[in-house]
């Protein structure tokens, strides 16, 4: 079994994230995948308004400007708030935010960042952007772990 197939196992991802991954897999080419990603950039479930962009919530290592914050909703579900000036980055934040929305923090803490590869978007992550994305992902994962530990 090759690596890609293994990562594509349905049980690996929360259901909303798996749905998005499947949608990306249906795209014809990279241009279509970028177009879809840009559409997701407009579907942020919890947009962080520009006035709330601070140095504390800025994602380090991104060439473009990106900000994220994590909160817990009244039911104890995880919420990812974020935004970026580039659609590509905001699209990735949106997909992650949709994928983890309302999940228990302990589940969010276990998600792996490989979904970008699964969506065939790896070519769109330049080394600096990949670094920024990994910084963001790690920051979210650690916050979720902390939230889970505190409960």
């Amino acid at each position, binding site marked *: 079994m090759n690596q890609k197939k293994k990562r594509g196992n349905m049980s690996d991802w929360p259901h909303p994230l798996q749905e998005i991954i499947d949608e990306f897999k249906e795209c014809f080419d*990279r*241009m279509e995948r*970028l177009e879809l990603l840009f559409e997701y950039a407009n579907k942020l479930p919890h947009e962080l308004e520009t006035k709330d962009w601070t140095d504390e919530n800025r994602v380090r290592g991104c*060439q473009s400007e990106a900000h994220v914050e994590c909160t817990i909703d009244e039911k104890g579900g995880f919420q990812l708030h974020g935004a970026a000036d580039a*659609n590509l980055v905001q699209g990735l934040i949106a997909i992650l935010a949709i994928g983890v929305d309302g999940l228990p923090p302990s589940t969010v803490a276990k998600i792996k960042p490989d979904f970008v590869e699964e969506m065939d978007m790896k070519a769109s992550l330049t080394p600096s952007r990949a670094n920024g994305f990994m910084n963001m992902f790690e920051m979210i994962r650690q916050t979720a772990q902390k939230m889970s530990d505190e409960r």
Partner: protein
Amino acid sequence: MGLDLDAIRADFPILSRMMEGGRPLVYLDNAATTQKPKQVIEAMNSYYENSNSNVHRAVHTLAGEATEGYESARTEIASYFGAPRDHLIFTSGTTEAINLVAYGWARANLSKGDVILTTEMEHHADIVPWQILSKERGIEIRYIPLERDTLTLDMDAFEIGVKDASLVCVVHTSNVLGVRNNVEQIIELSKTSGNHGKGAFVMIDAAQAAPHERINFIELGCDFMALSSHKMGGPTGIGGLFVKPEIMETMDPFISGGDMIETVTLEGSTFQKGPQKFEAGTPRIAEAFGWHAAVKWLSQLDMQVIHEHVSNLARKTAEKMSSIPGIKIYGRHDLNTCSGVVSFLHESIHAEDLAHLLDSGGFAVRTGHHCAQPLMEALGVSSTARVSFWLYNTEEESEAFIEHLTSIVQRFG
């Protein structure tokens, strides 16, 4: 006579690469690094396959061949730039060359009260070493502003500013605007009016100029000239600092050990004379072979014809881009001295998004601050997208780029 683009392109194996979706590669990131002709690749391979050895020390045959190749590279590259071989110090590139001026010359020859005059148009490599030195030695840095309407240096401010300057550091050709500064006038003014009439030293950053014009270091009349091999068809990892020998004698080494040593005792050391004094450790031997092959390859062509070809491509591309809704060009492409660089932004598509969308069509372009953040600030932006042409680019590639950019703007703008 024009350029035989088919013959030129046949020398660059990478240009026949097909990208995702069977699209041909259109390489438009030449200001970052140029592609390499097969003659350069073969010269480096041949060195490793036949003559690989360290230089200057051993007596065996391979060492002799490596030393001969390394030193004849110095002779021929220096000659290409109109200078004798003892004027050229090999460095890792332009950045290290400028740092060598800062740490090797300025640290030994400038002190508190001296003024370094540079400009808003510089690459970070020509700003940061001076800032570090300024902090260490109390040397003052002054910046000549960019005229916001013409996107050229404010030469009136230069004429005033140069009077107090001990050292003038100016970029020959901007990596963002494509503007070629009037370096001849800058050097003339520096020598006649600089340092209160005693004449200022001048360092020219020629990284973006070397691929576009045949520079004669001696005729240019500056004291230091920094450049990189990889911007002119040569390999990465090597560049040079041209220095007049009488000035080289006043420089201290800033990296020490290995090849720059003459004798070492427990009490002290003596250094080699000339360029070797500044080439510590095992030098970049294969890279010197490669750079030599690049200048040999370029010598077959007329640099003026190359300049006209590249400049025309940039001008025509910029003109066509200006008519695409929402596109704004940053630079001067109406000047016949302009290089192959066209920086631009779209009013609603982020530069990085544009670069990815262009890449999906096989077009390699650059985005970011281009290591020129003060210039970005002067332009009132944080980054730009940039296409940059070189001698192998064609009108068809320019047209294909315009077509793809137009479709992106229609679809995403």
